[in-house]
């Protein structure tokens, strides 16, 4: 799985970080998303998919081929 974040779309709501703190973080100065792990391990896939699904800004995309 590959994960992408779009910092321009992100509205800093932190939902992703609450769900998957090993994969997402937020910049200290404004709360905008930072990707920690673009290729998370198998066990994290469901929660990362959930994070992409519930991100209010649609700023997270996930691709499965890889």
């Amino acid at each position: 799985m590959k994960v992408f974040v779009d910092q321009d779309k992100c509205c800093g709501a932190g939902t992703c970080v609450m769900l998957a703190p090993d994969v997402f973080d937020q910049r200290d100065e404004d709360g905008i998303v930072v990707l920690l792990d673009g290729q998370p391990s198998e066990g994290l896939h469901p929660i990362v998919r959930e994070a992409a699904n519930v991100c209010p800004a649609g700023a997270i995309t996930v691709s499965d081929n890889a």
Partner: protein
Amino acid sequence: MAQDDVEQLLRYPIPNESALEPPANWARLRQRCPVARVALASGDEATLLTRYDDVKRVLSDPRFTRPTPADNAARVADVESGGVFNSEMATVLPQHGEGHLRWRRMIGKWFTAKRMNALRPGIEAMAERLIDDMVQQGPPADLKASLGFPLPVWVICDMLGVPDSDRDRFAAWSDMMLSMTRFTQAEIETAQVEFGRYMAGHIAAKRAEPGEDLLSALITDTDSDGERMSDATLVATGMGLLIAGHETTANMIGKMVAMLLADRRRWEQLLADRSLVRTAVEEALRMDANSGFGMVRYFTEDIEIAGTVLPPGTTAVCSMAAANRDESAFDAADEMNLGRSPNPHLAFGAGAHSCIGQPLARTELQTVLDVLLRKLPSLELAVDVSDLRRVEGLVVGGLRELPVRW
């Protein structure tokens, strides 16, 4: 309804007797009339959107925002004041484009997930204290007044660096500024003036002697253009956070607990498996059929929705609560499934204007539920579900009281 000329416009908000169940016509609106003309309490006409995809798309469309006083938008009600995003906040705080983005990013760092984790123990201690006081007074108790109403104010006061001794005044001002029915216009205005004066003094004190709080930081911070917030913006930010974060969260605590107790098997399921608390909170937010007015957007360009082209000047009301029950977005949408995941509900809106306080609201709701399950496992409703009453008012929906025993 949208296309034909029948002048029998649906009145909005849709009257609803039930405190927890949705009005019957939501399903019909979604299916047959996804773009519905409605008459607001002011008599002005608006367009009601109820489908998940439409509501999500409109709320996330960066071209459209909440109407500002300069727009010729439909008025929600006849009264001037009241409302989550009332005139003060809407005129002082930037609502559009770059300015809004800069403001949002300046306060964004106060709402990160990391900061919420740091706040959690404090919120837990506040919840425990409030529940202990409620227990001491003995059952039955009104959970809304004892816990739901004070907790979010305590949390916001903490963030703003307001001393504990002033919490009650904050709670009272917030109540008055938001109420559209219980207080007179004069009382509401007095509350606004007093609150504004208090905040101005508070900010001056923080300027002289900064603390570890949000306002102290905002006083010295600069935004991405190197600008500082004006005093007016600082006051409006403090007021905005109180107004946007108090009544919403207070009511949601009450409605969440009511939904979980209305069918006590839900409560028991949570007692048996505490790991469901997180998803249960999301499901309560999704199921909330009494979330209030919805979010208003003013269209400044043509937009096509479900085959209807809406012209500039249209005022749209997005019903997130109706969208959250859309079968095309959620399996068994009318069933409360405490483990539902993922749960991309729209209770906090969507896109660039979506609730910036959502991690805080989630933390408060999860903490309250955790503490209640731990301290009062025998909690139950002290009245029949059908005796629960909605608060009358327009903007934020809630229960008048939530009588419980244990």
